[in-house]
């Protein structure tokens, strides 16, 4: 929910509750005041009547109704004063409406005769007045509410514009570009503070990011130079004519492991670089041509291993860093090649937005999804690092492609669904 909607909603709810409570209290107060005034009038009236009451008066006031406001009737027994105040309605048969009246009655006596005096007062005008006041109150309250609501919207836009401006800039910020955000100034102290804090934060993050980038670049250099020394020394030792075969094998192991370490280092650095988003540049990359290039390099190896290869591709381009797509395709093909037994089959298919590599083989003893994790291999192949598919997955995550694996009884099937947006 938007900030403005949320505050408005809260504001309106609170206002309605307050308005309702105040309205009820106000209404009650007015009604009580008016009723008290009417009651006092009735009490005065009945007091006047009682004081001046004569025997003659009795027959003059037979009833109270719409037109007569006094009634005096004889009663048989006097049981105290018994003042009773109540509200009632009289029906106007001409206008077919009820009119509200307030009635006060009490017992009295003339000599030894007992009477009940009743006086009435029309409340019609009073009620009408209450209604008018209530209406005026409601209308002014609603007008107030509306004006406050629209003023609030107006000021909200004006005051928060600095905030939304900053928000938009932060949304469009890309760490890999290393271009710090230029906030436009705001008159609001808190927003100035916010911009300052965010600028500071981004500064620190950028520093860390650059540090990390430098570290990964340094790592390549720093590890590879000693590795070069190890490898070249080992190679030199192989040339020595007087080394025993035992020593030669030792040297050879050093050589082979240095090579493995180098490949491992290279793969991990690629993963780090992708994680650090160092492949931001995009260009139209022809996936089918990359596949063709790699397959032509593989063709000799495939025929040496008697692997039958079947290729169906369409012309397909996507916007990405060509090196990453190259690595993606190479790693999938290499994975298939490495894990296919001699005499097996590999099927490579590229359709619009989808790349599939299938290779023959029996089902895996491990969960298919974990194949894409680092250092997970179903059947340890000597010399395989277990990073190829992790790199595939990293590239897919990077571009939002979907990588999946399934085994359909005879074939392992790896599928990459490229993102439609590209």
């Amino acid at each position, binding site marked *: 929910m938007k900030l403005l909607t949320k505050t408005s909603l809260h504001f309106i709810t609170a206002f309605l509750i307050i308005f309702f409570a105040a309205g009820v209290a106000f209404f009650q107060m007015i009604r009580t005041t008016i009723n008290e005034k009417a009651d006092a009038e009735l009490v005065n009236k009945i007091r006047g009547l009682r004081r001046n009451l004569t025997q003659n008066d009795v027959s003059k006031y037979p009833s109270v109704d719409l037109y007569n406001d006094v009634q005096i009737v004889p009663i048989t027994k006097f049981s105290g004063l018994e003042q009773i105040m109540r509200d009632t309605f009289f029906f106007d048969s001409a206008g077919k409406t009820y009119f509200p009246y307030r009635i006060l009655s009490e017992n009295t006596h003339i000599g030894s005769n007992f009477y009940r005096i009743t006086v009435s007062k029309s409340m019609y005008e009073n009620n009408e007045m209450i209604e008018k006041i209530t209406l005026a109150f409601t209308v002014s309250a609603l007008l107030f509410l509306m004006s406050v609501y629209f003023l609030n919207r107006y000021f909200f836009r004006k005051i928060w514009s600095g905030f939304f401006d900053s928000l938009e800039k932060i949304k469009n910020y890309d760490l890999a570009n290393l271009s710090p955000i230029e906030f436009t100034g705001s008159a609001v102290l808190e927003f100035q503070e916010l911009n300052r804090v965010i600028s500071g934060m981004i500064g620190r993050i950028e520093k860390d990011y650059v540090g990390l980038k430098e570290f990964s*670049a340094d790592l*390549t*250099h720093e590890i*590879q*130079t000693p*590795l*070069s*020394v*190890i*490898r*070249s*020394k080992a*190679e*030199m030792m*192989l*040339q020595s004519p007087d080394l025993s*075969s035992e020593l*030669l*094998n030792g040297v*050879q192991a050093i*050589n*082979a492991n*240095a*090579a*493995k370490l*180098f490949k491992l280092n*290279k793969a991990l*650095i690629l993963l780090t*670089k992708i994680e650090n988003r160092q492949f931001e540049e995009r260009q139209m990359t022809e996936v089918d041509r990359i596949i063709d290039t*790699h397959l032509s*390099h*593989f063709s*000799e*190896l495939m025929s*040496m291993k008697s692997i039958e290869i079947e290729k169906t591709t369409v012309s397909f381009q996507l916007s990405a860093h060509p*090196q990453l797509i190259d690595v993606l395709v*190479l790693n999938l093909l*290499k994975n298939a*090649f*490495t894990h296919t037994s001699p005499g097996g089959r590999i099927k490579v298919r590229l359709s619009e937005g989808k790349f599939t590599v299938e290779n023959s083989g029996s089902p895996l003893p491990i969960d298919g999804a974990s194949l894409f994790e680092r250092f997970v291999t179903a059947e340890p*192949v*000597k*010399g*395989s*690092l277990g990073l190829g598919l992790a790199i595939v997955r990293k590239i897919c995550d990077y571009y939002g492609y979907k990588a999946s694996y399934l085994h359909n009884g005879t074939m392992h099937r790896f599928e990459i669904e490229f993102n439609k947006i590209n």
Partner: protein
Amino acid sequence: MKVLIIEDEADLLSTMDVYLKAGGFLCEHAFTFAEAVLKISFYDYDCILVDLNLPDGNGLDIIRKIREKKKSTGVIIVSAMADLETRVKGLETGADDYIVKPFHLAELSARIKSVIRRVNFDGSNSITVGELRIFPDEVKVFAKEELLDLTKTEFDLLLFLISNQNRVIAKETIAEHIWGDYIDMADSFDFVYNHIKNLRRKIKTHVEDEYIKTVYGIGYKFSV
């Protein structure tokens, strides 16, 4: 063939030096940028190996200096930086080749020879070893004046072995030279073996001597 090695890592430089000298190169060294610039201005080299990260400067500037003089010198960048951008930049600056650390000495030697051949190309570019005569640019090999029918891979393999005559070349080194990233080491030994076997058979039909010797458990050695 005179080679200048510009490399600040003394250990690495010394092994490169020993290996290349044994392969018949005349080697000179420079540990620093300043030293390198000085040597380039005084002497001519057939090939210069340039490390990009030097303590007192950038190898690319050295390449620019070499190219300013328009010397017909082969330049190979030897660097730990493997990323595409650096490679492209290096080659655009004027390097003839780019080799990433760590490299095999045999690979380095083969690349130097290839660069020198390209730079000094005079139309009849050929190498003669024993009874073999190789034309690298035409991808042809003659044994006793008879054309050998070699595949592209077999030709590469032969050229690689010949570039490292009398040296033991490990199977890994051969595999990496031929297939690079396409194969994991351990898989490749049978393939290397098959290629060597075919190459021997094809040479055997014309030449009696066995040029390609097996070094048991390690690799192969080409000697006449």
